[in-house]
Each structure stands twice: as structure tokens, then as C-alpha cells.
């Protein structure tokens, strides 16, 4: 208690105050209002939660959301790890080129990129025309309005969010450690698996957390590029608000998503000792 009081009277306490007030106003206050919509309708009520428990459709939408997000995180990680490794170990000039190549799409609007995928992956799009011209397929493949379209669209958007945290951690790994391992006789794959990979785990964790969180909230890309199997909870929330004006139920779905994601993080963090991994900077 004494320590807390001392903190708030200190310089650090005063400097944090503006950010804290802003956070309270634009994050905590709307959340409280949402909880109000979810639990109150002319008096305290659990009717929205009862309705939610009764209907399997909303849990299916939730599971669609999680399925898409987990898949996006895994695919992005698999693509980003080699790329970040390349960026770390290559020449500064090549690194600059790679960075620019990553950043330019990053600066383009998500909506524009999503529409571009409609053109590229469509029945008469670039990919199908190429496949047909090369004789690899006999008819246009269905690359849109299913999980393929959604994954392509989302992975492209979220790739930088995985590459940069990975690169940030990898670039700080002391390359001497690698050299020592090699000089002690370890073959390259052992060096990668037992030396480099464990050292890069904080970056992996940070990247995965970031990508997963962003993926869970995606609305536009699954809606435009996906099919009925990719209907997300975000779509259902939007429908509740714009079509049915049912703010109470929409708030309930929003809180459900928040609770599930928070639960996932609590679980994963306990399981993997995430605190130790991510917060490793201060100590070491």
C-alpha cells in the first residue's frame, strides 16, 4: 500500500496519468456500457445469456472464428519464420529490400487488398487462368468463398505482424552462440532446433499473440472472401446491431468473444509459462 501511494506521487505516476485517463475513457467506459446492455433491460436480466446458451449457431460462429484465427496464426508463423531468419542473416541491403517489400502492402488499405484478392482468385482470375493455361487443371478451381480465400487474404495482411516481432528478437540473438555450437561439432539442424529456435521463442510468442488477437477481430476479410463455413462471430454481432437493432444481444456476443479470448490467453500463458518467456527482457 505504501509503495502504491509512493508510486502515484512519483514522477512515473504523474506521467502515466494522461494515458491512463484516456484508456479509462475509450476502453473501460465503453466496455462497462456494453456490459450494461448485456445484463440490463429494464432491470437486471440474464435473458440474452439464456438465449445464447440455447442456440448452437452462435457457438458455431465462435468456433469458426477460432478455427480461422488458429489456422491463420500457424500458417503465418510457418511463412514468417524463414523470412525473418533470412532478414536477420542477410546483407543490410537485402534486408532493406525485404523490409520495403513487406511494408508496402502493409500500408495499403485492407479493404482494397481484400477486393484485389477477389480479382486474383476468381473463376476468371489470374491464378485460375494460369493454372488452366499450364494445363494443371481442367476447370477453374474454387479458391474463393471458402477457407482458402479467407486464409490467403488474412495471412497476407497479418504477415508483417509476425515477421517484425520475430525479426526484432532474432536480430538480438548473439550469433557467437551459433558459431560456438558449430565449432563444438553440432550439425546445422541441431543448431537450429536446439540453439536458435529456443532463443527466438519470445519473438514467436509475441508474434503469435499479436496475429491471433488481430485475426479474432477480423470482420471484412472473412465476410468478403469466405463462405457460410467462415461466418465469424463478428458477422453475427454486426447482424444483431444493423438488422435487428438488438444491442443487448450484440453486447452479449461481444462479451462472449472477450471472455473466450481472455480465457485462451490465461490458459496458454499458464501452460507455456509465457510470463517467463515474454517478460524475459528485463531480467536477462
Amino acid at each position, binding site marked *: 500500500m505504501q509503495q502504491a501511494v509512493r508510486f502515484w506521487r*512519483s514522477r512515473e*505516476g504523474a506521467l502515466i*496519468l494522461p494515458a491512463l485517463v484516456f484508456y479509462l475513457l475509450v476502453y473501460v467506459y465503453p466496455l462497462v456500457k456494453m456490459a450494461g446492455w448485456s445484463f440490463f433491460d429494464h432491470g437486471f436480466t440474464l435473458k440474452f445469456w439464456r438465449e445464447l446458451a440455447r442456440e448452437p449457431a452462435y457457438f458455431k460462429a465462435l468456433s469458426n472464428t477460432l478455427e480461422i484465427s488458429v489456422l491463420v496464426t500457424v500458417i503465418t508463423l510457418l511463412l514468417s519464420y524463414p523470412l525473418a531468419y533470412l532478414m536477420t542473416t542477410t546483407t543490410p541491403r537485402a534486408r532493406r529490400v525485404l523490409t520495403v517489400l513487406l511494408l508496402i502492402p502493409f500500408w495499403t488499405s485492407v479493404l482494397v487488398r481484400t477486393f484485389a484478392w477477389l480479382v486474383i482468385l476468381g473463376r476468371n482470375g489470374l491464378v485460375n487462368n494460369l493454372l488452366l493455361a499450364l494445363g494443371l487443371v481442367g476447370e477453374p478451381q474454387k479458391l474463393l468463398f471458402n477457407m482458402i480465400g479467407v486464409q490467403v487474404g488474412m495471412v497476407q495482411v497479418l504477415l508483417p505482424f509476425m515477421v517484425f516481432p520475430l525479426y526484432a528478437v532474432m536480430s538480438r540473438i548473439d550469433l557467437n552462440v551459433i558459431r560456438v555450437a558449430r565449432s563444438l561439432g553440432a550439425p546445422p539442424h541441431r543448431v537450429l532446433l536446439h540453439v536458435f529456435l529456443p532463443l527466438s521463442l519470445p519473438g514467436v510468442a509475441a508474434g503469435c499473440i499479436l496475429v491471433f488477437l488481430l485475426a479474432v477481430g477480423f470482420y471484412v476479410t472473412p465476410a468478403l472472401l469466405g463462405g457460410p463455413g467462415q461466418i465469424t462471430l463478428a458477422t453475427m454481432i454486426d447482424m444483431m446491431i444493423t*438488422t435487428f437493432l438488438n444491442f443487448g444481444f450484440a453486447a452479449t456476443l461481444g462479451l462472449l468473444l472477450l471472455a473466450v479470448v481472455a480465457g485462451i490467453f490465461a490458459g496458454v500463458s499458464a501452460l507455456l509459462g509465457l510470463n517467463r518467456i515474454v517478460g524475459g527482457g528485463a531480467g536477462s
Partner: protein
Amino acid sequence: MKRREVLKSAGIVTAAALTGPFFHIRPARADKGELVVVSWGGDYDTALREHVVAAFEKATGYAVKLDAPPETAKVKAMVQSGNVSWDVIMTDAPAVQAMLKDNLLEPIEYAAVDKARLAKIPKELQQQYALGQRIYSFNIVYNSKLMPKAKHTRNWTEVWDAKNFPGGRTFNFQGGTAPQLEAALLADGVPMDKLYPLDIERAWKMMDKLRPLVTKWYTSHAQAIQLLSAGEVVVGNTIGSRGIAAKKQGAPIDVDYNQGKLASDNWCLVKGVRDKKIAMEFINIALDPKLQALIAQKVPYGPSNSGAFEFLSAAEAADLATSPENIKNQFWWNTDWWSTPGPDGKTPRESQGERFAKWMVMN
């Protein structure tokens, strides 16, 4: 100690300054002399501004601000927070029903509208809280390159027939106009004049048959037109007027008005509208047959005032959903049936809409 106090107070002052914008929000209401009209945007708004807004501004001296789109959730937020900045909105029947449920509209002042104009507007479009401005219909819209006019789907039964008419379909998902139960029943052979009251279970059986044929369930009509233009689908259930507009711009799209479902976009007054008299005057001017004809020439939606057809050529009229040729093969969407609450207090718009969402997710 003194330095610490100064820093702390500096922090608090900064915090207060940062929250400033949240506390002196500029009033968003229309200033006196201004009317805010909300419509769907795009070409229609351009035509509206050119003809109706110009005439209104000249007649009354008021300035008109056009906004888009008429999101019902925004109206709800506005009315419930007491911060109403929209005066007149033009929106579809399901949105009107949604807003009425939360008591967000003012009744239309029919005494303020020219009797001659009202006489030429269909009775279905003259409701207590909504007055029809333009008429459109949900039609069979198809890609005329992939499915030539000579052998295209002429009715909903043929749209459901993927064997004789192969290719993807697109129907709408979300929005108060879904699901298209009437089209499903027509596809099953129900005569057009015996549609209502809808046989719901029979319609859903037909929807089950439709599901595997649909390539993409669209969420905006622009999306449907894009899917048709790109050849992703060969036929869809969307707004004919949009198809005609695309055709005029060179897209390989055509429309068959057979078995179309007629509906209207209507003028409504937001609860708490500042000057009801001026708002009604705007609506009255918008219903002028000459102005409606001028708009219809640019954007192919049917004018609600049939007197407008006197000012349109036969060629221009042929494109419109409400021309005598086209209207005789279509039926009116029965907004009464869709807005009458059932024993559980929910209207078919709500219960069928919810059922549709669940049906879609649990595929």
C-alpha cells in the same frame, strides 16, 4: 518536493486537456436553415441533389445536406442519446419496421402533401410512418454472356434448376430483406397470387434445395452485381434496377422482370426532427412527378408517383420495374404479413431473419 508537485499537476492538466474534446462536443444538429436528408448515396443522390434539392433550396431558402447510408443502428443511437442530427431518411420497409419497434420515427403529415400527387401513389406506399419515394424489385438478374437471353432462367423454378441451367447462384444474406422465401415458394410452383400467408416450412424445404447451388451469399447489392459481372455466378436474386444500371454501363448483365418482388424505399421522419413542416415540404417536392421522371431517366428506379410516366418516353419506361409492361408480372412484397407479430411477440421479419442466420451458420 516542489518539482514533484509541479510534475504531478502538469500530468493532471495534460490528462484534463486530452479529455477536453470529449466534453465540449459541438452540437451535431442541423443549424436553422439547414435540412439533413439521408439516402443510399451514389448515383441516386447525385440525381436527387440535381433536381429535388435544387428545387427545394430555391423554394424555401433552406440548405440541404445529403448523408448516406441510412443506418438504422445510427438512428437508434441518435434518438436514444437525444443527439438527433438527421431529419429525413429514405430507407426500405424492413428498416422502417425495425425503427418502429424502437419508436424512432415521427408520423408522416399527409395533409402537407399535394392531394394530386397522393392520388397517383399506390396505397401500399402510403403508411403511417413511411411514404414511398421509389419502387424497385427483387428480380432474376443474370449474366447475359454466360446465359444468353435466348436460353436464360425465366422464372424461379428455372433458377433452382442447376441441371438445365448450370452455374453459380447468388442470393442475399443479412439485411431485413432476407430470406427470399417468396422466391422459394414460387420456385416450388405456388401461384403468385396465392403466396401470402407464406407456407414457411415449404419455403425452407426449397431453401435447403437452393443451398448447394449458391456460390456466394451476398451482403450488398453492389457485391451481387460484381459477382455477376465477373462471371463468378450466372444468375442471382437482386435488385433489377441495379442490374439495368450496370447494363447501361456496359456490363454483361440483364434482368427478367417475371415473378419479381416489388418493394419501396420510403421517406421517414426521425423522432425529434427539428422542423417537421420544412421536412414535409422537402418530401412533397420529392414527390413531384416531373422531378421523379427526371431522376428516373438517370437512375432506373420506378418513381412512386405514377404521374411521372407522362414525362418519360416508352424506351425509358421499359427499363423501369413499375412500367405497365413489367409490373404486371410482379407481386408486391406484403409488408403487413412480415411485420405482424406472432404468438411469441416476434415478427416474421425477426424470426425468419434469425432462422436464416442460424440456418446459414449450421451448414
